[in-house]
Each structure stands twice: as structure tokens, then as C-alpha cells.
């Protein structure tokens, strides 16, 4: 059995955590960074870049790079057409079908893009366990978090992504609930908690009751299309309004980067500057000061949009804001002072944010993963389904079978019969949402019940059972009660992948796996090469370099270094990993003597002027 981790698959950043000696901790890279930007980029030669490297490529190869893919999970082209206009990558697909993202000459579904991110996190965790000297370092199972307000299609898409990444998804957990678990670790007392989770692309509010270690969600609400991305877009509009003409995609990404920096600055400062360096798109560059007051006016209505779901969740839980014992902030966007202020005012108390809002969800996911595999029973999460589940009846009206905020697992039954004599199949349309008409709800799937024994119309009694599991994912079964014949059900997910499609993608991903692995090794080799180049160039630029050459170096040694440097730079742009490694070693070797000399000089300089007693 391999290792089990908890993963926060975020709109902007993703991260992985695990429980070590009873306490959850996030896994960081060599530089201490826990966040993997949720960005994927397709190299010109077909290699896949994920994370920081892909984020850098957003500025140089925009049309081959995709970010915020979470917004597209489980969605159709019709849902996303408006926002797709602003994005550098191609968004396509069949009308009424799954979104397809075009990068270069390839097309990917959102679960495939998410799978690249998950694979990166899996790799990161495995590297970590290997470095810790663990014999069994393979990561094969994970708890993955989703926004509480994700519908069935979005949850299923997330589970598919896990499968494509070679992970068994033990459980899909709602982000605010996971966060409450991380907070609950050292708070064994009881009370009502409100978790306000404003991330990069989604907003959730969950109201929980905690007692005896049971974390029971009373109500949840949210908006799966509201988050930091929208703040960025408002700021970008502010900048783009200055330029009447078409701007290249790369420049738009540079502007996006600049406004995000300004947004971050405004969390600590009263004033910030949006600063875009000159580029072919805007030769003079761009600078604009923005005060926190102006920023808050700009985003006020966005933050206000989160308040309606909060009020609805409170109403559904039958609570007044004053009955909330503790409010908890989750998600990077809760760093915005206006958000903290408005949440504080609503609940009449200062909200908690002791645990890093970027990390708290992954920590909670790790705790849940540990509960699942260890069988520890001190804590239990009881979550709810965020949306009502129903079926279309006569006239396109929805008949609700499982109401929103029902504790999951939950089940519901509905009886069906036939309309004409000897009818052997019945079509059923399953929907999710609160509206009365099928057209206003989310279509989840169409089912066809087959194998009904031929009888007079109205005689068959077909019981269809809807089961929502602890992941919030629906399954359907049916049987004819008079004959006890189980019915077969064909599922056609409205905005999801069929099992066959996932299977095919899985095979394809194995074919690409070697290429992806190679790409990773190349990136590592390039990073190492760049470190050596930077160190060498620094030494060559020393003010005392001419003196070193004259006094300490062998004849021709300087030339050997310079040519080794040029050789390495020449192969650095390519994808020949062996060549890069070889030239890196050569440069290292050629500069070793110089490095020693520089070191000795530094030591002498440091000691100069001190007397013997001090040493």
C-alpha cells in the first residue's frame, strides 16, 4: 500500500499535505514553497510544464498556457463563452458538451488539465517521501477538495482528474469543511462555526455545528464563479481602458501579473502602483497609482455578492448572524481588508485567520485522508448536498427528490410507470438546482430505464433510487416492484465524461507519461545549469577579476572558462538533457579553481582589520 495525501486543487494554486506523527503538514519544494500555481503549459515540442515554469510561460507563450481551469470543470461551452473571450488559450468543444481547451495543436478536457496538476503534486509528495528515506514512497490515494457549492458534474470531473493522474480519490471533501477540520484539531469545544471561503475562482459559505468531535454542516451556499479572478479582471479593465487598440496576449498576461501584484500590495499598504514594463504591446510601459479607497470602491459590489449566499445559508440553518460563535476565513482572497471588514461586521466579531488561508484546506484534506485509512474515530465530518436533486416531470417542472442541505449520504426514491401499453423503457432526466423549471436547473444526466416487462400502461411500478454518497456524487438504480426485475440504466452525463472517455484518456496519458517525465528532468537540469552560469558570471564581473587573472590563474584558464560558459549557454535553449548536464559539469570543473581563489579572498577580506584576539 502506498501513501495517502490530502490535495487542495485550487483555481489559482494547488498544494498537497499529509499527516505526519498525528499532525498535518504541507509538503514544500526545495525553496520552501508549498504552492504549485494551477497553470499548465504545452511546450513547442509537446512537453508539459506545470506550476511556476508554466506560470512564467504565460508571459512568453500565452496561447499555449492555461490557468484557472477549475472554472471549466464539469461545465459546458455555453456556460463559459463570455469569460473565454478574455483568456489567452482557445476554448472550444461541442455546444451542449464538455469544454475543450486548445493548446498549440492539441486539445484537452478540463479533467485532463487538472490531472497534470495532480500528477505534479503526486510527484512532489513522492520526492518528499523519498528524500525522507521512506522505502514505500509511492502516492496512490488522495483526498481531494472541491468548493462546497460544486454540483455533481463538477465533482465527478474532479474525481476523473484524479483517476487520470493515477490517484484513487478516496473522498471528495468540501473545502470549507476541510478547513473547519484543520481548525478543529486544537478546539475540542462545541459551537456554531461559519466558514467563509473566498478563493481564486469560487466562493463558499458553510455553517457548521461542532459537538463531541462531530463536525456537522447545517447549511452551505456559494457561487462557483466568484473569486480573486474577478477582482483581477476589474483591475485589468481599469488598465485596458487606457489602450484603445488590440494588445497581444502576452501583454495582457503582463498586465494581469502587474494588477495581481498591486492587489497583493493593497492588502498591506494604503496605496500601490500598477506597473507594467515596456513590451512590444505597450512600448512605453504603464504606471498607475491606485489607493486602497479606490480599490475598495471598485470591488465593493463583488464582495457584496458574497453576502447573499451567507444570508441564505444562515436562513437555511435557521440561525441569526449573532448566533455564530466563530467565523473562519479561508482562501487567498480573504486577505483583502475589505473582505475581512465586511465579514467581521456581518457576524459582529473578528473572524479567525490564524492558519494560513492558502494552506488550511490542504491540511484539512490530509486530516480527512488520515481518518479514512487509520479508522480513527475522534472526528467525523457530516457534510450536506449543496443543491436539491430532482427529476423532470410533465410540462418541464422539476420534482425534488433530495432537498438541498440534506446530510449526506442521502437517498431518495421515486415511482415511475409507463404511459402506453407494452412500453419497455422510460426516459428520466435528472437535474440539480433550486428552480421550479427544468430549463433553469443544471442538467446532470439523462437515464433510460430498459427491460421493463411488457404490461398495460400504468401497471408497472418502477422504483428508482437516487443515492448521493459521502462525496456528494449521485448514483441511480431501479427495479420493477411487481416482477422484482432490476432495470439497467444507461447514463449519459450532460457535462461530463463517460467511463469509456476516461479510459481512453488514461491510455493516452500513459503514452505521454514518459514525455512528461523527460520534460521534468530537463527542467531540473536547466535550473542547475542556470545556477552555475549565474555564479560564474558573478565571479567574472568581480572588480578584482583582472588582478586574479594576473596573479592566480594559469595561462589559458580564463579562456577555458569562457568557452565552457559559452558552450553551456548554447545547449541551454535546447531539450537535450544529457548535453546540458555534460556542459554544466564541464563549466563546474573549469571554474573550480576560480571558485577556490574567490573563496580564499573573501575569507581574507573578512578577517582583514581584525586583531588576533578577535580570531
Amino acid at each position, binding site marked *: 500500500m502506498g501513501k495517502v495525501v490530502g490535495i487542495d486543487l485550487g483555481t489559482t494554486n494547488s498544494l498537497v499535505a499529509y499527516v505526519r506523527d498525528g499532525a498535518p503538514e504541507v509538503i514544500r519544494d526545495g525553496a520552501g514553497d508549498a504552492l504549485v500555481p494551477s497553470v499548465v503549459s504545452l511546450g513547442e515540442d509537446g512537453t508539459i510544464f506545470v506550476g511556476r515554469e508554466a506560470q512564467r510561460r504565460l508571459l512568453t507563450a500565452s496561447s499555449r498556457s492555461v490557468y484557472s481551469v477549475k472554472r471549466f470543470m464539469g461545465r459546458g461551452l455555453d456556460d463559459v463563452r463570455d469569460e473565454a473571450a478574455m483568456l489567452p488559450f482557445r476554448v472550444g468543444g461541442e455546444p451542449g458538451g464538455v469544454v475543450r481547451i486548445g493548446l498549440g495543436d492539441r486539445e484537452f478536457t478540463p479533467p485532463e488539465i487538472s490531472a497534470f496538476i495532480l500528477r505534479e503534486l503526486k510527484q512532489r509528495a513522492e520526492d518528499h517521501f523519498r528524500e525522507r528515506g521512506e522505502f514505500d514512497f509511492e502516492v496512490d490515494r488522495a483526498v481531494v477538495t472541491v468548493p462546497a457549492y460544486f454540483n455533481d458534474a463538477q465533482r465527478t470531473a474532479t474525481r476523473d482528474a484524479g483517476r487520470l493522474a493515477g490517484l484513487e480519490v478516496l473522498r471528495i471533501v468540501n473545502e470549507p469543511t476541510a478547513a473547519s477540520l484543520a481548525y478543529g484539531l486544537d478546539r475540542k469545544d462545541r459551537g456554531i462555526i461559519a466558514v467563509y471561503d473566498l478563493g481564486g475562482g469560487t466562493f463558499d459559505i458553510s455553517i457548521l455545528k461542532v*459537538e463531541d468531535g462531530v463536525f456537522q454542516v447545517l447549511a452551505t451556499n456559494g457561487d462557483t464563479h466568484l473569486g480573486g479572478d474577478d477582482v483581477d479582471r476589474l483591475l485589468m479593465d481599469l488598465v485596458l481602458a487606457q489602450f484603445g487598440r488590440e494588445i497581444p496576449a502576452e501583454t495582457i498576461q503582463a498586465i494581469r501579473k502587474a494588477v495581481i501584484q498591486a492587489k497583493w500590495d493593497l492588502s498591506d499598504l494604503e496605496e500601490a502602483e500598477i506597473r507594467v514594463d515596456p513590451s512590444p504591446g505597450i512600448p512605453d510601459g504603464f504606471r498607475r497609482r491606485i489607493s486602497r479607497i479606490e480599490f475598495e470602491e471598485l470591488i465593493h459590489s463583488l464582495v457584496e455578492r458574497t453576502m447573499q449566499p451567507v444570508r441564505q445559508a444562515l436562513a437555511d440553518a435557521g440561525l441569526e448572524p449573532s448566533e455564530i460563535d466563530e467565523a473562519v476565513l479561508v482562501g487567498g482572497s480573504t486577505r483583502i481588508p475589505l473582505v475581512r471588514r465586511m465579514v467581521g461586521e456581518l457576524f459582529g466579531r473578528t473572524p479567525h485567520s490564524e492558519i494560513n488561508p492558502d494552506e488550511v484546506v490542504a491540511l484539512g484534506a490530509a486530516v480527512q485522508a488520515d481518518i479514512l485509512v487509520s479508522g480513527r474515530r475522534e472526528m467525523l465530518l457530516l457534510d450536506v448536498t449543496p443543491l436539491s436533486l430532482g427529476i423532470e416531470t410533465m410540462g418541464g417542472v422539476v420534482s425534488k427528490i433530495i432537498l438541498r442541505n440534506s*446530510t*449526506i449520504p442521502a437517498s431518495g426514491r421515486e415511482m415511475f410507470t409507463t404511459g402506453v401499453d407494452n412500453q419497455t423503457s422510460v426516459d428520466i432526466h435528472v437535474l440539480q438546482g433550486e428552480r421550479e423549471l427544468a430549463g433553469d436547473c443544471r442538467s446532470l444526466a439523462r437515464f433510460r430505464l430498459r427491460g421493463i416487462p411488457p404490461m398495460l400502461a400504468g401497471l408497472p411500478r418502477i422504483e428508482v433510487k437516487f443515492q448521493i454518497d459521502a462525496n456528494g456524487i449521485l448514483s441511480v438504480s431501479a427495479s420493477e416492484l411487481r416482477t422484482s426485475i432490476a432495470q439497467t440504466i444507461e447514463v449519459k452525463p450532460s457535462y461530463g465524461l463517460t467511463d469509456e472517455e476516461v479510459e481512453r484518456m488514461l491510455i493516452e496519458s500513459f503514452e505521454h507519461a514518459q514525455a512528461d517525465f523527460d520534460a521534468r528532468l530537463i527542467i531540473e537540469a536547466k535550473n542547475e545549469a542556470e545556477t552555475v552560469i549565474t555564479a560564474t558570471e558573478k565571479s567574472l564581473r568581480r572588480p578584482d577579476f583582472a588582478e586574479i587573472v594576473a596573479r592566480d590563474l594559469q595561462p589559458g584558464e580564463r579562456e577555458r572558462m569562457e568557452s565552457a560558459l559559452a558552450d553551456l549557454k548554447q545547449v541551454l535553449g535546447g531539450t537535450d538533457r544529457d548535453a546540458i548536464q555534460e556542459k554544466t559539469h564541464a563549466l563546474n570543473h573549469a571554474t573550480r579553481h576560480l571558485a577556490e581563489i574567490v573563496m580564499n579572498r573573501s575569507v581574507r577580506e573578512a578577517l582583514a582589520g581584525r586583531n588576533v584576539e578577535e580570531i
Partner: protein
Amino acid sequence: MTPEPIPVSAVSTLECRNCGAGAPMDEHFCPQCSRILSIGRHGDYFAFFGLPRKLTIAQADLERRFRDLSRRFHPDYYYNASPTERLASLERSSYLNDAYRALRNSMSRIEHLLAIEGMPATRSDGATKVPPALLEEVFALNEELDEIRELREAGTDPAQLRARLDTARKPIELKREEHERQVESLAAEWDAHFDKNDPAGKHAALEALRERLLERNYITNLLATIDREAGILGPDAKGPEPEARG
């Protein structure tokens, strides 16, 4: 939403799918091998919680039982178990959640009691028949609503119509409050007859409860009709926030 009539099981025992031993209907775990039992067509939520069929329930006690059973059934704790046990855990947890939802709320608790006593509060005979006790109110309301609709189409100031709608709502609200009091005292009556094990008294209480519940459904529909009309008049019609659902 009125639930489907709940089929009460004809059989009174469960069979353990692990060891094959028989177990009483209200057991959750096999008395022989102590594995979680698959759920039969059970039906009685009171018995499931180990409670008598009484309508007065201490909320804190019910909650405690719910948490306790959740801790024993939840799929989280059956991750490593056999497929049969995992399925049993999923079904038993779902059932527990459904049962808790039904018993937590006093009205759905009565609906459940009626269903398992074989007197479901659904109108199989002519679903639109107005309960006699409500005839007067329904007549007045329909007349008022017709007039408001006409005025609205004629372009009368919505604020004025909203005020009339609020006035029309008052007597229905009063009726609902009166109803709640009646239901409460009938529930207490049922509990008393239950304790004395008085079949005739129990039956009378159930009949009366059933009648009240049918009326209550009708009142709820009337209020929904008023809300719909208010919705057409404009977003400010019934205050800034939608009412919580039960």
C-alpha cells in the same frame, strides 16, 4: 413535499450477509458476528433511533443519538471493510440521515407517525378539495387575489397592491398559528394515549392530526400563492430576504 407512503416490512427480522445469522429488525449490528447489518425495508424511524412512537422528543437527546449512530455507521469508518459492509454502511447512514431529518422537525415527525400508523396525510381522493374549516378564508383570498391581478394588469401602483396583499396575508397567517397550537395539543394527546395504550384514543388523535395536517398543507399552498403574486409585483414585495424553508 409529501413523502411516498412508506412500505412497512412484512418480515420482522434481518439476515446478516456476513454470517447468515438472523437479527431483530431494529438491530444495527449482527448479534452474532457484530458486523454492520444491511438495512431491510424498515420504515419505523422511531424504532431505528431506539425511541418510543411519541411525538414529544427532546431535541438534545435526538441529536446525541444521531451523532452516536453516525459514529457507528459512517462510510468513513468502513473504508477498509468488505464491499458488503461498505454498502451496508452507505445505506444505513443514508437511512439514518433521512430518519433524523424526518424526526427533527415536529411537522415531518407527525407525517412520519401517520405514515407508519397506516394513515398517510396525502390526498388520494380529489387533491384539490378545500378543507371545510378553511372555506371562508379561501373564498375571501381568491376574490382578493383576482382583484389584485386585475388592478396590476390595469397598471395600478405596485406599492398599493403590495399593501393589499399584506392585508390579505394576515388572516391566513393567523389561521396557521391557530393550527400550530391545535397540532401541539393533539400531539400531547397522542402521547398520553400512547402511554395508557388506549387504542381508541390513539386512533382518534391520529385522525385529528391527519385532518390538521391536510389543512396545514393547504394553508402552506395559499401562502405560496400569495408569495408568487408578491414576486410578480416586484422584488420589494415581501421584505429584503426570502423566508427560510422548513
